[in-house]
């Protein structure tokens, strides 16, 4: 599920969120490509991702729903994972600083995250 996308002549940025089917972790993954990245790091692209471990997802979902993000539960319930994706998209989607923003949010809410990049 796409959270952010921007394309300009020297840089293309996309950030998406998904559930890992084996670990059930929530993963927010970013990918920057283009001349800008080349000049900055020497590589043509930069990949980075934040992992919210499966056991922390409930806290994040509860926190976001308390603040009114995500699906309302008047009708049929989708799975907690889809509810979480929906809430994350509602809260963080469209933000070009989504990775930092979600890390900050989780830190303030006492939710463990792990950051990786290469």
């Amino acid at each position, binding site marked *: *599920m*796409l959270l952010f996308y921007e394309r300009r002549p020297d840089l293309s940025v996309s950030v998406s969120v*998904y*559930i*890992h*089917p*084996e670990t059930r972790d929530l993963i927010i993954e970013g990918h920057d490509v283009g001349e800008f990245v080349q000049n900055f790091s020497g590589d043509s692209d930069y990949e980075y991702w934040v992992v919210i471990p499966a056991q922390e997802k409930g806290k994040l979902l509860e926190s976001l729903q308390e603040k009114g993000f995500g699906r*309302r*539960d*008047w*009708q*049929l*319930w*989708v*799975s*907690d*994972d*889809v509810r979480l*994706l*929906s809430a994350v*998209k509602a809260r963080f989607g469209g933000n070009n600083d989504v990775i930092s923003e979600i890390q900050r949010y989780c830190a303030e809410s006492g939710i463990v995250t792990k950051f990786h990049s290469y």
Partner: protein
Amino acid sequence: MEEETKEQLLTFGNGCLDQGVYEEAATCYSRYLEIDPDDSGVMQDLGYCLFQLGRYDEALSWFLKIGHNRNSALTLVRMGRYEDALPFFEADLAEHPGRYPVRFNYVSLLWYLRRFDEALLVYQAGPRLPPMTYMGLGTLYRSHASEDFQKRNKGADLKLPKMTDILSYRKERISLGLV
């Protein structure tokens, strides 16, 4: 598509569901379940998509398989099997006594079935709820939240909703669409 991985199927399916493209989402989830037939979350989401596509029998079979009381109840309502839905609503309420929509759905259905006393008693039984409906509970209130009802339910701790509260919530829609 044969080469698609679980991750791709799940991610694409979730994206389609989010966009309301239920046919595609259902296809992805079905293929996913061929690989991992025990994933109850995906079964729930597949049932959700089938419900949205009007394939209620199939949706119900998934909800029953994973024991999802609420979704089973709402699907049965959509199928017109109101009496069959009641035990599922009751079980859902027992599972989530503090959730306003759960109680609201149950009360709405009881009201629709003209089981007014039960509806009022279920309404009373939990934590105080926001006034829940404009027409439904308003009618219920007018017809049964009366001295007669109170006489028939002596000893019950009756905290009937105020008519003014009910009227203030006129814009709130009723989830079941029963009234």
